């Protein structure tokens, strides 16, 4: 009987230690992320980054994303909703984190589409067709290409020319470097007015945005 009690006590002690360690570690991580963000304010926004919403808005959402990332696709409507709900108060800045193999080519297409002012439409199309060209964690720009052609969204000849712009590579390098500085090692990574999400999730993002709206308006 006594032995059984020892075992049960051991189980509870171990689970307790686990919970405590988890709590301490998570608190430390949030602290580190917040500090990183506070120390590197210049890393958030680059002049080259695509934006949406009011450029003078007091709440800025920065999203590090990968067009081949499934979770980024799922978060996209949430952000679009927020932008529609507060068109004057929120702006979105997107940064590239092409972590998947081949994603850099997708980013190149996005950058080239920007020159025709079709960045957001192209991004929407990428997310819509993502299941068909993002296969086994590989981004297949060749597969996406056919969708792009059929929609007639872009002037394809100009697109092909713009894809070779060496500036695209620099944009990607800069975004990857800034992402590294800020600890954005997963996609999507969000910062709202420089603050990281306390933990990952839709509600956490919406809450953080609401907090910032309240604080600034």
């Amino acid at each position, binding site marked *: 009987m006594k032995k*059984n009690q020892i*075992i049960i006590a051991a189980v509870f002690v*171990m689970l307790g*230690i686990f919970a405590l*360690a*988890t709590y301490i*570690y*998570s608190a430390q991580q949030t602290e580190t992320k917040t500090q990183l963000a506070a120390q590197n304010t210049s890393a958030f926004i680059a002049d080259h980054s695509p934006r949406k919403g009011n450029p003078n808005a007091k709440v800025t959402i920065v999203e590090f994303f990968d067009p081949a990332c499934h979770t980024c696709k799922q978060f996209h409507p949430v952000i679009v909703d927020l932008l529609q709900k507060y068109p004057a108060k929120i702006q979105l800045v997107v940064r590239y984190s092409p972590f998947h193999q081949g994603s850099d080519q997708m980013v190149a297409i996005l950058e080239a589409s920007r020159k025709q002012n079709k960045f957001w439409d192209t991004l929407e199309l990428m997310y819509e067709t993502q299941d068909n060209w993002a296969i086994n964690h590989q981004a297949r720009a060749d597969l996406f290409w056919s969708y792009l052609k059929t929609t007639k969204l872009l002037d394809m000849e100009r697109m092909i020319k713009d894809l070779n712009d060496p500036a695209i590579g620099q944009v990607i390098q800069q975004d990857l470097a800034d992402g590294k500085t800020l600890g954005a090692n997963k996609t999507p990574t969000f910062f709202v007015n420089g603050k990281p999400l306390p933990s990952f999730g839709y509600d956490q993002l919406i809450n953080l945005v609401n907090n910032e709206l309240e604080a600034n308006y």
Partner: protein
Amino acid sequence: MDQQTEADNKTWMFIFAAWLIAALSTLTSLFFSEIMELVPCVLCWYQRIFIFPLSIILLMGLFPLDRNVVRYALPLAVMGLLFTIYHILLFYGLIPESMEPCTQGISCKDDSMILFGFLPIPLLSLAAFSAITILLLKARVKS
């Protein structure tokens, strides 16, 4: 009768200690992967495969005490130990790179396996599997 009880007590102690180590290792391993979000490499996965059931089988052998549990647990501990030894040899470069089974994906000799700057995770695994193996062997001798 008293001798029997004493022998039982010793066996219980050995199995209990082995279970304690297995359960702690399981939780530690889960902490690394789920909380610290370290991605387990291939060899880590094989070791996890052998440590996770140990924490459950040994517990079953304690409620109530069943010496036969050693029979089922020992092969798991020994298999885990073999994988750990292989991992250690690889980690310290005693086996050449070309034999490394996990160059793709997560490296088995990555720096991320070193805790607090000095303690490699494979070494923790080696300590756990050796201790469990020895304790189970001792529990078997007594029976």
